[in-house]
């Protein structure tokens, strides 16, 4: 409950501060077309910058999503680690082994490069 209140207050305060900073300072003249040109060191673009952006690490992100999910199992596991003892240690060994296979496979296929 405390968590939700702090998050709500932090978000509201952040937004309020932003609005105050934008509204409080010197009133600015409206932007003009030459001012709005995206910065290219004096050059000009042909098109809008928003595009079907070729993200060069896309296969890495797919591996990452699966990897992240495995982490979800590890948090509760960490809490009972000492209580469960050796069983938990063996379990972790297996888990890390599975993750390592995934990484090794990804590495072999060249996933962790700029495609």
């Amino acid at each position, binding site marked *: 409950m405390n968590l939700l209140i702090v998050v709500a207050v932090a978000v509201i305060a952040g937004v309020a501060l932003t609005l105050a900073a934008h509204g409080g300072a010197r009133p600015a003249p409206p932007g003009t077309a030459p001012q709005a040109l995206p910065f290219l060191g004096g050059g000009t673009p042909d098109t809008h910058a928003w595009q079907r952006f070729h*993200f060069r690490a896309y296969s890495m992100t797919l591996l990452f999503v699966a990897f992240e999910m495995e982490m979800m199992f590890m948090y509760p*596991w960490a809490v*009972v680690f000492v209580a469960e003892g050796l069983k938990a240690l063996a379990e972790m060994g297996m888990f890390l082994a599975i993750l390592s296979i995934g990484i090794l496979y990804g590495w072999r296929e060249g996933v962790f490069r700029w495609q």
Partner: protein
Amino acid sequence: MRDAFVIALVLFAVWTGWRVFRVDSMVRASFSLMLSFFAVGAIGVLLSAPYIGVATVFMMAVEMMVMAIFMVMFMMNPAGLNPMSMVHQHRLSIGAGAAAFAALAAAALLSELPDAPVPTDKAVVADLGHELLGPSMLIFETAGVTLLATMVGAVILSSRQGRYGMADQGSRPPGLEPGGEPAGRQPDESGGGHHHDHGGHG
């Protein structure tokens, strides 16, 4: 008091969920969906499931980041500079969505719901850990292996260099005799009228 918060969060989740299909920018759509997940996570925190709630936020922040990246990568006009609507069978879909809602809502309203809330002093995170290492060990291990299979599958499908050459050049089965014509059906002739293969460069 708690119910009022839950109602507000449910409304927020539904509203942001609806926005997903109403905004033009793919980035906004992804992060709208993310907010919908966050509302559900916050409900989880309110309903004494702190781990599930916060983990939802954590997981979905990452997943929706990836979602946004792929949406922008593969959607035409990803930023919605030209407002657009890419829907088909629109009426049918609205009908199906409304029917699903009506049926589920009726089930929720008409059936006798159990009433056994979580005891306030329950150590829910440790419970989950013991469950994972005890009775549900098999589920846990299966999930691990399934996710490994997902990793491998995702890599195979998405990377270009397959074991049998470039993925965009069509597979070429080995010949019946060394160096001879490839055996079986020719992949390049079977694509039909929809085939617009721009691959093969690079």
